[in-house]
């Protein structure tokens, strides 16, 4: 019985290792993030046209833009994926040449419990299971943008999901704001907006078709 078990183990692991050779070149979902230096003296203007953006505030003093969709072109396979270019002018950051050129992504994932370990975490990020989207992008959010949490933001995008930021202006088809500071003179435009657990200055305007609020704190400061 022990001999049979040993043979099964050796065969299993060998076949698995051999199969990896046929999985193709190592791919990555994310290209190198763009880093943009910003000044604290004026608002940061993010113009991301029709793309979906996740915005998270952080303690660092620069903006980092990471693609959440495949952008790989390693020369061995004809990966097209997400094409984009970031243009910057001081605190103005805009997305240019944004396009999606694929329709199906099949990814080989390693063992599920590996995501517990920092070193292997990236392997299972962003795409899970078989999912179908009828939109022009794989999921609603194509970019993760980290911004200094204290500099006010003016954001224009297709979809916005912001947390831990200071906000001055938002315009999107759908906006979700969480744990953020909505400052004096804030204006929002677009179809739907959800505001959760934020600090809202009373001098704010929500010019949206639909507004949903939960757990917010109103202030006059």
């Amino acid at each position, binding site marked *: 019985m022990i001999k049979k078990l040993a043979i099964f183990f050796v065969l299993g692991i060998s*076949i698995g290792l*051999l199969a990896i050779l046929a999985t193709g070149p190592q791919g990555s*979902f994310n290209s190198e993030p763009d880093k943009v230096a910003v000044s604290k003296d004026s608002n940061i203007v993010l113009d991301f046209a029709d793309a979906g953006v996740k915005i998270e505030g952080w303690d660092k003093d620069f903006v980092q833009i990471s693609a959440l969709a495949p952008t790989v072109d390693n020369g061995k396979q004809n990966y097209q994926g997400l094409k984009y270019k970031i243009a910057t002018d001081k605190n103005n950051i805009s997305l240019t040449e944004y396009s999606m050129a694929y329709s*199906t992504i099949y*990814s*080989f994932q390693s063992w599920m419990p590996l995501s517990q370990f920092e070193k292997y975490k990236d392997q299972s990020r962003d795409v899970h299971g078989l999912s179908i989207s009828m939109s022009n992008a794989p999921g609603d959010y194509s970019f993760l943008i980290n911004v200094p949490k204290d500099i006010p933001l003016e954001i224009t995008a297709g979809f916005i999901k912001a947390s831990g930021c200071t906000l001055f202006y938002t315009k999107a088809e759908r906006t979700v704001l969480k744990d953020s500071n909505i400052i004096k003179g804030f204006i929002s435009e677009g179809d739907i907006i959800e505001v959760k657990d934020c600090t809202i200055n009373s001098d704010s305007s929500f010019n949206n078709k639909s507004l949903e609020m939960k757990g917010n704190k109103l202030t006059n400061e």
Partner: protein
Amino acid sequence: MLFNENYKRSLTAFTTDILRGFRKVFMVVFAILAALPVVNAIAIASLKKWQPQAIILSSNGMLGIGFFTMLITLSISFFVSTSNSEILTQFVWPINRKVYAVGNFLVMSACALISVSGVSALLPVEVLSARILKAAFDDLILVNNITFENFLVGFWISFCYIMLFSSFSYCLGMYFFRHKIITTVLLILLANLSAVPAIGSFYNAIYAFIFEEGTSIMLFSVKVWFAILLLHILPYIQLRRMEVRL
């Protein structure tokens, strides 16, 4: 006593007998797992034909689903194996409580090893079906996140997890089938006590002890095997009490 010939013979007979019982379970589960990538590929091909503008994302293949399926299957199997009727069928001469306890540990280790080895051996089915899809559709992108390193590390981690959950089911079953009412009441009580902040924090500490993110693989392995051994020692206490009745 431990190296007694009779003991060794009993242990071999016991483990062989139990493993033979598992053969059917493995065959059925592996057959289902082998069919999954094929069904997935057919689904993707059909979707691409009927909805050409759809964006299809497919991941968490054989290694992810296989691990999860084997974890659930073995946890249920070892829970059921501790029921009174199952135990009585196994306690025949010359099996005693020591053989039963050690035998169960060995069988569990063997089953966990068979599970991860079997799932690994099925990986080519997924690779082949994805390759066929790639050949059929020009716009399909294959993104590979499997490397030799993460495969081998994942193999070990998955083995540890399957052992841990199977041991937990075995321990739980051993107490549940002996004292159904007390165990159920205790479980409900423990679940409800999580609302008390101090006890809730204690539960979180136990959870973090094993499932802590960002831990090293070595430290994780030590913690998990400590927990596995504990989950095999606890049922042994129950088993000792049972022998008087048997």
